[in-house]
């Protein structure tokens, strides 16, 4: 495997698209139950947690881009093999692939659960999986430009959902935020941990970096993307706290979808049903990016064609989700993979950082 990645110019995209990429990959199934999860540990100060965790994510992103810049024109697997040697580098690369696969499966599972609760109670898991997979396969066949284009279009299709919070916002009770800052350090740490699960997705930059045309602007646009996500998460949390009574919020399984239950237009009475179906547009970029991460990684590590490996991903994931039927089993699986995610996304960059600094110093001395 070559360490440096040379992408032909026609496959590269401009850095500005990173904003859409990060927005669409980070906003996902995790957003829907998030306000309740964080409320359980952080109470009415949850908004504070979002801001703190947001700062952390910005910081980690900075470190990732710093590392990428120090290593020159390469991606995750190039860096791994340059730092740890061929075999250990490959091993860590495989671990990453497994992690990407776990995330892919959790997204599918969670979405299937929505569909079953809200629209079709008896639909089989593999039907939902197959329906999503067709579009994923289509995008992988289309290559990186198709994927970036999809994320751009799906961003335009979905970001207006944020404006729907306006009506619930008028029903908010600001007393629910009192007393402020009633939170201990344990709550802060747990809260940040939960938020970090929700904000997984920044790892995509490890693989996308070589594809960026004007790499100097990577930092700006990826940070903007994260900012957009944090703001949208923050508005969700603030409105959930104001809208529900404290004990009520804890009982909601999907607070964000429940909030949509109050929205009704003369021409469209039950908007929540629409939102659940529409959520597919939010899920699809997630699935597409993770599928791309898996197949692209396999290509880099083992030189397997993406057009072949994607079918393996589809079949494996569709069978995998059939084993998880109840809400408890799904939750357990999601929790475990999210915990693993913390290490791959937030701890790993700190591991690479010293090597990157060393490289920079050595480069400067030369």
């Amino acid at each position, binding site marked *: 495997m070559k360490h440096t990645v040379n992408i032909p110019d026609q496959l590269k995209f401009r850095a500005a698209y990173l904003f859409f990429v990060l927005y669409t990959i980070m906003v996902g199934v995790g957003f829907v139950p998030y306000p309740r999860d964080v409320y359980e540990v952080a109470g009415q100060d949850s908004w504070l947690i979002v801001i703190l965790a947001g700062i952390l994510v910005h910081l980690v992103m900075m470190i990732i881009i710093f590392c990428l810049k120090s290593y020159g024109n390469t991606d995750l697997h190039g860096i791994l093999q340059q730092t740890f040697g061929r075999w250990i580098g490959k091993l860590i690369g495989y671990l990453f692939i497994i992690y990407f696969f776990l995330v892919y499966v959790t997204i599918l599972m969670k979405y299937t659960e929505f569909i079953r609760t*809200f629209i079709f109670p008896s639909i089989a898991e593999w*039907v939902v999986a197959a329906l999503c997979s*067709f579009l994923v396969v289509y995008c992988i066949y289309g290559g990186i430009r198709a994927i970036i284009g999809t994320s751009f279009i799906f961003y335009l299709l979905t970001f207006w959902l944020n404006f729907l919070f306006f009506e619930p916002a008028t029903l908010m009770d600001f*007393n629910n935020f009192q*007393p402020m800052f009633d939170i201990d350090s344990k709550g802060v740490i747990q809260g940040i941990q939960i938020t970090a699960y929700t904000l997984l997705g920044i790892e995509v930059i490890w693989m996308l970096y070589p594809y960026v045309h004007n790499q100097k602007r990577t930092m700006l646009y990826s940070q903007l993307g994260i900012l957009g996500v944090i703001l949208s998460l923050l508005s969700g949390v603030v409105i959930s706290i104001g809208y529900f*009574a*404290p004990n009520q919020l804890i009982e909601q399984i999907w607070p964000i979808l429940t909030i949509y239950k*109050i929205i009704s237009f003369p021409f469209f009475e039950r908007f929540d049903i629409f939102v659940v179906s529409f959520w597919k547009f939010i899920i699809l970029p997630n699935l597409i990016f993770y599928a791309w991460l898996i197949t692209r990684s396999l290509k880099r590590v083992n030189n397997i064609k993406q057009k072949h490996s994607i079918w393996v991903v589809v079949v494996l994931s569709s069978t995998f989700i059939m084993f998880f039927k109840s809400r408890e089993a799904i939750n357990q699986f999601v929790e475990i993979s999210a915990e693993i995610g913390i290490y791959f996304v937030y701890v790993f960059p700190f591991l690479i950082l010293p090597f990157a600094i060393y490289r920079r110093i050595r480069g400067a001395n030369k």
Partner: protein
Amino acid sequence: MKHKIKSILLILLTTLLLAGCAEERILEELGIITAYGLDINENGDGLLGSIATYQFSQQRTNENQLIFSTGRTAREVYSNADSKTAKQLVNGQLRAGLFGQELARRGIMPYVDGLMRNPLISDSVYITVTDLPAYDVINATDFEEAPNIGTYIYRLLEHAIVNENVVQSTMHEFVKNFMKVGADPVVPLLTKENDKIIIRGIGLFQDDRLVETVDIFDTFFYRLILDEYERAESRFTFPADDYETDLNNYGQGENNDQLSVSVHQIRSNTDIKLADASDFSFDVDITFEGRITEITLNLDLSDPEILKKLEEDIKEQLEDKVNEILAKTKELNVDPFGIGALYNTHFKKDEQLSATEMRENYPDFQFNVNADVKIMRYGITE
């Protein structure tokens, strides 16, 4: 070219699969539930449900049907009702739930919870209690030009809420206030008059049990304390003797010993603040700006002194009424204004009162009511 055919095939295949997924629902074969009433059945051991459905048929338009059925749970009532009609019952269009007074006094949360749990039912369904048994009220056949009884109730309440005659009473509000520590739900009270459903006032709940009904005149003051007002109107009455010297001669026929004023409220603000936590005392400050829309005796309103006296009298009556209402809630031990929740916001989590402690302490709450009334205008004549 080959690629294009492939992708078109893919799209076709997907749409085919998607269409196959959907359950078909033909409008003519559905009985759309628009409202339902729940009562305790005759034996007292179960529920009597009256389900108002709206059906479409090719021969007749807008067919309304009332189905009665019984069961132990609201869901059982629903499935029993399904066997009493040839149409498939669906509840996505439910507009209002009517709970008979007798049932409401026992607690309605189990049934509301059932609605809440169902993703097909909107959170903006109106929760109401009825003065008469619910099956009797829902049986009303005069619903103006509304196509069905559910839509009529929905329009009636929506109009009343917009005109600020009753409190906001969606299912979301009900559950929110039920769940909140230190707050109790308030819902509209419906009744039947001349074969038509009307609003009679509001019902005060303790947790999920109805404990008291309030007529429409007092409802004004409840809403004033709840601070939801923007455009409601109320009437104040004083002995006319106080104004004797200023009276011009009209309306001197009967009833001339009473002076009644209708005041339309322009702006009001109710501020409830914790004054002293140790003895649970609160300051209730009401600012009320209004305009006079009707007056039964001819007063010279351009005279600042008369206007001032009027303001003073209204203020006094407002304060008395609010004090009376607050005393009543203490006596009944219900907290429709969420004052307990307000109390709790001043304390850290471990020092807050729990729901049971709140109930024990609410009768000891002290209120210091202070109103400030201003008459801004009095129409186009003096």
